Structures are given as C-alpha cells and as structure tokens.
C-alpha cells in the first residue's frame, strides 16, 4: 500500500489539494478510533494503526517537497542521499544570495521585504514543482531528482523567512 493508493489517487505530482483533503477527511471518518468506541479491542487497535497511516500519508502528500521525494522513492531514488549532493554552481550561488538577503532583511527588521521574499520564494517553489511534475512524468528521473533537491533548498529558505517574520512579531 503506498501513500497514493491509500487515497485511491494516481501517483502523480500534480494532485488536487482539495480532493486530497476531502478524501483524507472521508478516510478518517471511517477509520478513526473514535468511530469504534463500542468495538472490540482488536478493532480499536486496527483503527488506531489505520488512523496513524492515513495521517502519515496525508502529511507526506500535502507537502510538495515530501511528495516529490516520495515519488522518487517509488522509483528507488533516495532524493536525500547525502553521498550525492552535487548541485549546479549557479543555483548554489543564488541560494547564498537569497540567504544573505534574508539575514539582511531580518537584521533591519524589514518585515515588508521578508514578506516579499517569502512570496517570491513560494512562486519559485511552485514553478519548480511544475517542472518536476513534467520531468517525473517523462521519466527523466535524474533531472527530477535535481529539481526535487532544488525544491528542498527553496523550501528551507521559505521556512527561514517565515521564522524571521515570526520572530519580528514577538
């Protein structure tokens, strides 16, 4: 049973998020332990295991980076393999510039700039996702792996921007 078949959805990157969320709720409504208060202990145990699985599958599929990494794992590629971390130099330089930009905006307490950067990064993540989807569907798995890694970098930057913004709100 893989995460996609759990929701009876095709193993593609381009998932409809509302459809995924709605199937998640339907599934939990039928497997959640709270539905089995009058059931046998065996059924309660099974319900608990299924509810955990459904939560895990939903968490993995709703996040674009985890979804991409999971799709790669289905074709036996470890996108997080630490032995193979080569990334294009221009991309790495771009990352460093973004990071410096974030640190600078945070130091200046420039929340408008941070918001702006977070939203630019979000569209960058979305467009990387579109390219990943095409590469994966076309079975260009090497390209797809590099794209998934790029997505992971960009997501980290988004998290940094969000956490800088959160700190400013304290």
């Amino acid at each position, binding site marked *: 049973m893989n995460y996609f078949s759990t929701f009876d959805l095709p193993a593609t990157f381009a998932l409809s998020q509302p459809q995924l969320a709605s199937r998640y*709720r*339907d599934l*939990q409504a039928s497997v959640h332990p709270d539905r089995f208060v*009058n059931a*046998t202990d065996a059924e309660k*145990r*099974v319900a608990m295991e299924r509810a955990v699985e459904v939560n895990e599958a939903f*968490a993995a599929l709703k996040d674009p980076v985890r979804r991409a990494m999971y799709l790669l794992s289905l074709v036996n590629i470890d996108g997080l393999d630490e032995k193979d971390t080569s990334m294009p130099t221009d991309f790495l330089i771009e990352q460093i510039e973004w990071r410096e930009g974030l640190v600078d905006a945070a130091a200046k307490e420039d929340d408008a700039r941070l918001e702006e950067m977070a939203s630019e990064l979000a569209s960058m993540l979305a467009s990387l996702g579109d390219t990943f989807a095409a590469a994966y569907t076309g079975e260009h798995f090497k390209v797809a792996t590099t794209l998934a890694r790029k997505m992971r970098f960009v997501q980290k930057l988004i998290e940094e921007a969000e956490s800088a913004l959160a700190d400013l709100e304290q």
Partner: protein
Amino acid sequence: MAFLQISEPGESPEPHTRRLAVGIDLGTTNSIVATIRNAVPECLPDSNGHTMLPSAVQYAEGGGVIVGEEALKHRGDDALNTITSVKRFMGRSVADLRGDAEARYNFTTPNGDGKGSLKIVTRQGAMSPIEVSADILKALKARAEESLGGELYGAVITVPAYFDDAQRQATKDAAKLAGLNVLRLLNEPTAAAVAYGLDQHAEGTFLIYDLGGGTFDVSILRLSRGVFEVLATMGDTNLGGDDFDAALAKYAFDTWALTRALSPAGQANLLAASRAAKEALTNADVATIRVDWGCGFDSKVDVTREKFIELTQPFVDRTMSAVKRTLRDAKLKAGEIDGVVLVGGATRTPSVRAALEVHFGKPPLATMNPDEVVALGAAIQADQLAGNKSGEGESHLLLDVIPLSLGLETMGGLVEKIIPRNSTIPVAKAQEFTTFKDGQTAMALHVVQGERELVSDCRSLARFELRGIPPMVAGSARIRVTFQVDADGLLSVSATETTSNVRAEVTVKPSYGLGDGEIASMLQSAFASANTDMQARALAEARVDALALVVALANALVVDRALLNDAEHAALNSQITHLKSLAEGNDHRAIVRASEALNQASTDFAGRRMDRAVREALTGRDIEKII
C-alpha cells in the same frame, strides 16, 4: 460502570443502556461540569443554581476539604491553606515558578531537595497540584452523580491546547485520582469549536481565541461535514485574566506607595479587589480598587478604562502576536478566516475584542457564553466517546494536533525533532540512531518537547536507557526509536536495537506525574476498601468487558459473514462460546485472558472489516462527485 444489555448473537442488539458521561472544564479560576440531557448539552448547576465552581480548595482545620465558593471566602483569612489557580502549577517544578506565584504559598518538593514535582505545604500536609485538582474534580463528580442520579461511566476533561506532555499527564492523573474514567483529554479551543460548530451549523475556517483565567490558546480549525480538523494551534500556559488582575493590583500597590511587602492575606484581598474592578470596567468607565486592611485602615484608588487598557496592553499584544503566528502556521491570511470565536471569561475585556476586530476586519463571534462553551463541547464529545451515539449521521469527528514538537537529545545537547508541532494525532514516527563509541552496550535516551534547537531550552519529559546492545563498532548498531502520540496527545516512546532485537519502552511519565502505583495507593487509602471489594469489582469489570466484546463481535460476524471462510467463522464462534461460559464463572483472570485471546484471534477479521469500510469511504466519495 454501567452494565450492558446482551442479546443472542446474531440478533441485532437493543440500544444499550445510556451511559452517564460528562464533560469537565477544569479551569484556572472556575471549573464547570456539563452533560447531554434530552439531546441538548447543558451545564449542571449546584444547589444554588451556580454552574461555575471556583477552582479553589481550602484544607481546613480538623481535616475538612472545602471546594468552591466557600473555599474562596477564606482566601484572605487562611491564605496559605486555600489554594487557587492550581492549574498554573500542574506538571511544574519549583524551578518553573516565577514572579508573584512564589509569594503566595510555601512550596516544597518530594525529597526536599528542590527537584521533581512541586508540592504546596498546607496544614493537612504537602499537597501536589494533582491532589488539589483531584479535589476540585471530586466535587464536580459528586455534583454530576447527584444531578444525574447514577454513577458516571466516564468524563472528557479539557486541557489548554498548549499544555505540554507533563501538564497533560498531570491532568489525567488528577482525574484518575478523583475516581473518574477519563474518556479523553480534549483541547479547550477544540471543545469550544465543537460546541459552537454544532450549535450554529457552522462550516468553514474558524479561529478560536481562548483567554481563560490563567491560560491562553489560539487554534484554527476547518469545519467540514461534521469533521473538525485543527490546522494549527499556539498558546501560552502562563497568560490569562489573572494577569490583568495582577497588573491592576500592582498599579494600586505602586499608587499607594506601600512601604513593605504584603502578607499573603493582604495580597489575596488586593487581588480580589482588583478582579472586582476589572469586571466592573467591562461596562463602566471608571472603577475603584478598595482594600480594607483591618484595624480601621484601608486604601483605595480609582482606575479609568483608559488606564486599564494601558496596563493590560502588553498582554493583549502577546495574544495578538500568537494569533498572527498561528495564521502563519496554518498558511492562512486573516481575510480567509470565516469567524473568530471568543472563549474564556477574559474575552469580555473590551480591548481584547477591539484588537481582534481590527485584525480580522469584523467583530468576533460571541453568540455562546464564553464561560460555558468549553464544558458544553466536552460534554458532546463525552457522549459520543461513551458510545451513546449510534447512527453515523449524527456523530462528528475531531482531528486534533500536538502543540509542541517532540524530539530526542543528540550529541552536543542538540534536539533532533521526531514529531513536529501541529502534527495530526494519533501519530507515530520512527527514527534510527546509532552508537558513538566502539563496543557501546547502552544508550541513554532523553525525550524533550519544544521548538528550540538546544535541549536546555526545551522541556525535559523523560530519560530512559536501552541496555544490552551487543558490542559493535561505533556507528554500526541500528537503534530504532519510535514515538507514538495517542488521541489524548500523550506520548509513549520505545527503542529497539534492530540487529539484535533488544527492546526498551517507556510511557512518558515525567518526574512531574504520578506513577500508577502511587495513584493506586492513593485511591486505596482514599476508599480504604477491603481486598474482597477490589476483587468483586475486578470480576464485575472483567465480565462487563467480556460481554461487550461478545456482543460486538457476534454482531460483526453476522454483518460481515462474507469476509470469513467457514473454518475462520467456526473458530471465532467457538471462542465466543468459550468466553461466554467463562463469564458466567468467577475467575476474573480467566475471563481477562480469554477476552485477550479472542481479541487477538479477531484482529485479522477487524483488519478486513476496516479495509471494506475504507473502500466504501472512497467509493462513496466518487459517487457523490459524479452526481
């Protein structure tokens, strides 16, 4: 415990006896018990018609324990033995105490060394916050049993969403000590959302702003077709209406330029006067704080509404910054929130409502009593978890989250997060670790909770050791650590060395909780029950559980006969018959063993039934879509 009615296997069982279940809001300043009567949730009043029980306990001269309004009267004249706001001390150590709380009571620790759970010294001995809370819960249990005319089957107890594992465990221990069967620990804002959502038939995305006496929570939920899904939660377990009172008291104290620190009694009187002024300021433009110090000496000061707003602004700002962060965690903008629901007495403060209206561009919703909505939601959930709802159509489902990340200490005092905050429960995650030195045979695991990267900045929950690892080269052992959080939000951790299968397991019972043995001995001394009574009770419970299992399974065998072949069907039927005959006997251990065996034997069948339900859930969805 309620007894179940049994029908012949194969016949559809009659609706069983309705079980008495309550929801309890165990609050910092007030507690409430509610239940479902005639399909309507309602708070149960005391003989004076008051639904709110002040969360105050006086350990009186002569051994009496006085709870509620009567206890509160002695906050001035018997301050050290009259405990209020005990919720602030739940799951906390002396080192966690700060500010004026320290001045209120004499604290001690179990071994007097300042370590471990704190205790409050009273004339009846040192009381743990768990015991004080249990005394409040006992009063509510007695009220409910008198009002409902029977023994309670169980209770849902609410906790602040931002309570950590230690505070949750302490609350559960208090309920057990009060003799309550805990059906669920439920997050307060989630309980409020249930009551509000079902009452108003609300659908959409709601933010629950819950400012109680001593705790603050904000949760964002999506309400869709009876499913209540928590998207994100944030809070502060040390922020509430009490802080507004304290700010007013400090203002008065500074204005009067009193030269020496107040006695506990003086402080209690000043706080009470400040609270009265705060409540008056909800509607009035000016109020007076007046304290009679006795001996014909008194002090008073006027406070305008503007002054009050100025004094409490820092607290309101803190809540609004949590609101913004929760929106960020849920990846939502203020404009995407369909409604802001107010919970907790302190949300009556006009400046709180004003701040929310500015941020969300619309006034918050205050259609339900903010003091009662949590208990009402808990009662609705208790009714469902007691099994009083049969039809799928009328039941709802809660999908809640853990508020704080759970992790393990790794090399250098750093935290490796295993389960991130806002993960939907129940949840389980496993991670592999390895040994640091050649030939290492044991590994110390330190479980922590919090968002910071350094262990020293997080809350320590438990330490345990995995021993008996076969000596290997550093880095070659594979230690798989599994974190599991149940529907109460409580954590258990196990560790296994996978190449040798050495196993260690703990349910996280931090140094702040009580051991099961401790609870048992406290219960025993409380009831002073004879051994035979205990055995009779054990037998009765084993029988009820066995017969409930027989009924449920026999029914499932009829409904899903098609999922079993003849041999499997016959095997389960014969075990059912065996358990039924044992249940007529007096050997409670044999009944328990046979029940366990039958549960074990029916696990495959349960799995197949679940798979069928899942298929139906997914197909049902597609049909709905086509139509």
